[in-house]
């Protein structure tokens, strides 16, 4: 793995650790957030979010020998549409459909379309909001004539500014892990990793 990739993962890890620390308090939705203003998200609320930004291929781990190879993808575009439903104060679950498109160094186009089940914890620090989130699902990938469907795990956080009671604007940073498994030729099994950084617009339904 090249140095920029390692740095990016390190920065991401620090960011996630920080959000996870906040999430400790918010993980139990029955507990009031104390010094923070009352969490506006109650059971029955919902959020509809649109995201558009960049996606970066960072990780290509060869399961057969544990080596890291280049993913050979340039910066790409990432986008998604999600619907989240609050089942407790500050805690929501929902679904998301997204995409990531990136060009390879040899001129091919890589496309990934994840469809995931997502959960998120919403910590409100008026007028800001941090929402650590984890998602699991399936991702359809295509590269030239090759295509495959694999499981995907995504984790990261939304960093939002609550512009009004209805709208929140901000940034998502999220890491995608895609274990690519080929039962018929296991030498091709890999773990791919992507970083998504997207501008986010969230509407409080």
């Amino acid at each position, binding site marked *: 793995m090249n140095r920029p990739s390692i740095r990016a993962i390190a920065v991401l890890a620090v960011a996630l650790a920080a959000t996870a620390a906040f999430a400790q308090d918010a993980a139990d939705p029955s507990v009031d957030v104390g010094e923070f203003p009352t969490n506006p998200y109650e059971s029955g609320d919902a959020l509809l979010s649109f995201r558009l930004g960049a996606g970066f*291929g960072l990780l*290509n781990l*060869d399961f057969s020998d544990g080596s890291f*190879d*280049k*993913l*050979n*993808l340039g910066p790409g575009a990432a986008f998604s549409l999600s*619907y989240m*439903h609050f*089942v407790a104060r500050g805690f929501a*679950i*929902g*679904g998301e459909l997204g995409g990531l498109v990136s060009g*390879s*160094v*040899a*001129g*091919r186009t*890589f496309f990934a379309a994840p*469809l*995931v*089940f997502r959960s998120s914890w919403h910590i409100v620090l008026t007028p800001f909001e941090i929402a650590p989130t984890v998602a699991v*699902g*399936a991702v*359809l*990938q*295509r*590269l*030239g*004539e*090759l*295509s*495959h*469907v694999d*499981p995907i795990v995504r984790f990261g956080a939304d960093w939002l500014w609550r512009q009004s009671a209805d709208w929140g604007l901000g940034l998502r940073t999220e890491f995608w892990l*895609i274990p*690519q498994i*080929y039962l*018929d*030729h296991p*030498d*091709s*099994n*890999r*773990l*791919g990793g992507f970083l998504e950084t997207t501008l986010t617009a969230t509407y409080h339904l």
Partner: protein
Amino acid sequence: MKQLARATLALSLLSAVILGACTAGPLGIFESLSLETPIDNGTKAFASQTPNFVVRFGSDYYAGVGALWSRPVTGETWSKVSGAPGTLALSAAVADGKLYVLFNDTDGVSPSIQHTADGTNWTSLDTASLVGSPLKIFSDGTNLITYVREVTGTEPYASEGRLYSSDAFLGLDTARPGFDVLDIAATGANAYVAACVWLDGTAFESALSVDGAVSVNETGQPGAPTTLRGVGYDATIGYILAGSDGKLYRRNAANDWNATTTTLKNSSGVAAVLSDIIVVPAYGGGNAVLVGTQSYGAVDAVGYFEVDADSFTTFAAATEYADRGLVSSSTNFQTTLEGKSVMKLYYDGDVVARTAGHLFALTGGDGLWSNSWDGTDWSGWNRE
């Protein structure tokens, strides 16, 4: 809310099951990406072009991509040949120590054959003795071979074709209706075979010219609608001909032909229309037979096929090497020439004291590509 969670989960699983039927291909996606090598943009003027020829003359390569271009054998940068006596270079051949180029528009004479011994000073050949217009030129290793077409009727259109040898234009064989020469391969010692077509009544059929003597309608020779579109030579195998029916042929003697049993097919399972054929060194030793394909009507091109030269021990049993590992990697092929029409192939195996070589692929509308051989490995395809 449980309904939403169930619906999302079910949708994810359903899509995984449905989409799991997608073709995985011979390599994993991330594995294939890891094997990619950067593809250059190449010479801007060559993009989306159909090169007419590439030949080596002295220490330079010459290419007809619209105009006449050249670059040093050991260099990378192509430039238009200054002072070239024409703007459209149609065909070229190296013979008798000279570079011959067929231009179509020189000083109002169209077309004309020009030659140079130094790459700078050009001399026009007197083509007055030719019956018809020269359309292509070749080399038998020593002499210039010129294909000439004479228009014999306009309504309906009719033509006759002939071959001439040397720049004194010695006529070979008799003219045949609709005769056209698509490719020539030579042993390098004044011996050659040309893959040709001719009009037998109302149908175009294959014709074969052996040192100028044309053979048609022989037993075993492919008949209409199959034509011979390319020819290559290997000292062990002999002349190998590529047919429009996805098969390879060889003429051993009059009425004694071999044909491969296996039909080379495109990705749709249809017999590929083969174009040029060439024999080059292969990874791991031995030789590879490369067979170009071209889009023709509804038949899609697939770049080129690789056939292990050793499999020609029994000609009919020669089979495709599907892994594309003889002159390239699978990933390199997929990212370069796969799906493209490879109209011609040219190999120069004498770059550095016979320890390296350059292989060129001339595509139909996708520019000029090359691949270098260092005596052990191929570099992989990249744009010129």
